[in-house]
């Protein structure tokens, strides 16, 4: 029997992603050519032999469920355990930026009740990472902790407002957890919470009993408040984590995949990031194609020039098209003699012959889904 089950909160949304998250939660955002953000948390769990995973869905879950199906591509179409769809709370407008809403867990209490696992791993799905949860679970068991929070260290605070920072005592226990931005002592780096943690299942159920009736409460708020009464440990994660809270983050983290080191960290062959299989043909390069420093997915047809860009599945780049520094989502059609620079093209965008579209280098322009230009 497995000692842990997983829960992925995939109902978070944010206004900072402009049109990209208009029709989808952040979790369903296409990323890195052939993935959606959710794939990273989900694959990390599956690769860590967690066979029972609950995915908390947003109210508009079509794109998410289209992607997940019955969980087959993650080997979660199982008899024992498997993929569980946990419908999240339907909030009034403007409440969808909660990360670990307690109410979502209350609604799906049964998922937590009926399993026998001792631990629950909880992750948000607004970030890309490839993590082995075994050492985390081992530490949780060995320290006898109630809760182990995954953190990373950074010389600078993160951008964005809703990041939690941890203060650890000498033994590795978490002494404080807050959104504070006051600088730690000189020479000490910022320890930020990675929105991944493991908690005892029984404790989580107790928390639901005690606080479940309160509206709009984040699980992390409860944890922060009762930190001194719980045994809370920190776990340092050495791998790459790219958090996506804004258009700039999205663009930056996509482009980071052009670095061999980061690609190697995220796409380990022993721990592959799984995603929905489309059975696309291999990508075809025409006689006029010129492709440099780019990540290209299957099913593309390339006749033009592509540099420093990420192309998703089934993109067509016609002759005379120049693509530079762009993230192009699937099934976009880039017509003849067009120029595209510093752009994020959502799915099914058609750029017609002769168009010139340029965003600023550090301020990429977003073209929304199915736009015809």
């Amino acid at each position, binding site marked *: 029997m497995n000692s842990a089950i997983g829960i992925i909160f995939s109902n978070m949304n944010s206004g900072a992603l402009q049109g990209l998250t208009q029709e989808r939660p952040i979790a369903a955002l296409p990323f890195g050519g052939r993935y959606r953000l959710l794939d990273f948390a989900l694959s990390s769990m599956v690769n860590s032999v967690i066979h029972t995973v609950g995915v908390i869905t947003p109210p508009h879950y079509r794109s998410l469920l289209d992607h997940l199906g019955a969980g087959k591509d993650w080997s979660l179409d199982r008899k024992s355990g498997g993929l569980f769809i946990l419908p999240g709370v339907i909030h009034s407008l403007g409440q969808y930026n909660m990360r670990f809403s307690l109410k979502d867990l209350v609604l799906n209490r049964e998922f937590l009740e009926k399993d026998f696992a001792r631990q629950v791993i909880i992750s948000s799905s607004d970030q890309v990472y490839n993590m082995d949860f075994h050492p985390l679970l081992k530490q949780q068991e060995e320290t006898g902790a109630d809760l182990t929070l995954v953190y990373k260290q950074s010389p600078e605070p993160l951008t964005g407002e809703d990041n939690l920072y941890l203060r650890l005592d000498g033994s590795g226990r978490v002494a404080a957890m807050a959104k504070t931005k006051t600088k730690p002592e000189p020479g000490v780096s910022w320890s930020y919470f990675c929105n991944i943690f493991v908690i005892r299942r029984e404790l989580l159920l107790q928390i639901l009993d005690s606080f479940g009736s309160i509206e709009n409460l984040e699980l992390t708020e409860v944890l922060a408040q009762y930190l001194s009464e719980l045994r809370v440990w920190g776990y340092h994660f050495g791998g790459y984590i790219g958090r996506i809270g804004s258009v700039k983050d999205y663009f930056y983290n996509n482009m980071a995949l052009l670095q061999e080191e980061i*690609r190697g960290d995220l796409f380990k062959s022993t721990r*592959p990031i799984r995603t929905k*299989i489309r059975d696309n043909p*291999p990508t*075809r*390069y025409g006689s006029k194609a010129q492709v*440099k*420093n780019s*990540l290209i*997915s299957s099913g593309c047809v390339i006749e033009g020039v592509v540099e420093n860009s990420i192309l998703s599945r089934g993109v067509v780049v016609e002759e005379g098209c120049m693509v530079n520094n762009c993230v192009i989502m699937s099934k976009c059609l880039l017509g003849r003699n067009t120029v595209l620079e510093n752009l994020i093209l959502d799915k099914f965008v058609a750029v017609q012959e002769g168009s010139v579209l340029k965003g600023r280098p550090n301020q990429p322009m977003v073209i929304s889904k199915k736009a015809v230009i």
Partner: protein
Amino acid sequence: MRKKECIAMLLAGGQGSRLGCLTRNIAKPAVSFGGKYRIIDFSLSNCTHSNIDTVGVLTQYKPFVLNSYIGMGSAWDLNCLNGGVHILPPYMGEEEGSWYKGTANAVFQNLAFINFYNPEYILILSGDHIYQMDYYEMLTFHKEKNAEVTISAIQVPWEEASRFGVMLVDDSGRIKEFVEKPLYPPSNLASMGIYIFNWEVLKTALIEDEVDPHSDHDFGKNVLPRLLKQGKRLYAFLFQGYWRDVGTIESYYKANMEVLQEKRTAKFFEQKRRIFSNEEILAPQYIGEKAKIHNSIIGNGCTILGEVYDSVISAGVYVGEGSIIRDSILLPNSEVQEGVRLRKTILGENARICSHCSIGDKTQEPFPPQEGITVIGDHLQIRAGTIIPEGRNVTQDLL
């Protein structure tokens, strides 16, 4: 057990010796093709698209890769209740049992399997053809003609006709004469090795064939001519699409290169009838700063840092900086290190060419062997600086 209308028997047991070192370790239907597929994908996908949900795959020669690739058939949506893919190796009974002695004998040895599903019709397929075909249309034709056997046929160039079983037909499509690999072909209408039989007719024919001591137990050579002689109703179903037998190095190479032709690719890859495959989970391909790629297809998970022209690069391949690949086929997970020249070469799965080799160089020979195609077997390693002239087969490590 509910009765099935039509089930397929896929002949995948041949050694494929004409593919030389490509089939040293794996069965012919498991050889990869077209950058991401294995040859058997085409037949299995055709079954799925033709609503044939029960397929027996007759394996015998080096079946491990093939069997593990097929798995339970879920990659082709053939993992269904009451049907699905069945791997059928030869087996022992109380007193009988032997290797498959021929195509007909292979099916004969699995009478019990077919009886289990008790179909009306049996579709016999080969596991080594590249084509897209709707078997349902052929079955409709079979029923309309009230045929007992229907053979799928294609017009081939006259000079090639003697490689195939050829037939003479009358205006209605009924077969008057069938000869296997004739020296002087009476027609250029070739059998594609795809047959639909009424099960009762096939059962009787197989039992007759089994007791004939002079028979080679082959469909084309023995069973079909005998049925014709008995006056059974054999019809030819004319197929007009793309069809290639990839049984030899030359034809395998040519068919791969044909995938590079735009029209062909577009057709193969039409979303509606797309070819399914059991793909590995791989990241997108990375194309490096100094890479050049022209007129080629490239699979998932590749890292291309060098130059690739007119080539088929399968999934997971690495091409190092300064290497130049021309007119070649690189099979999955092969590796070409830095500064290598590769010309008209088929590089086997997981093979590794160390830096600064020169493979497939043109020679002075007016007619180099294998039309000048060099083949490097699966899992081989070629040490740095090796020079291999065109038309060679490399079957062991050169360290």
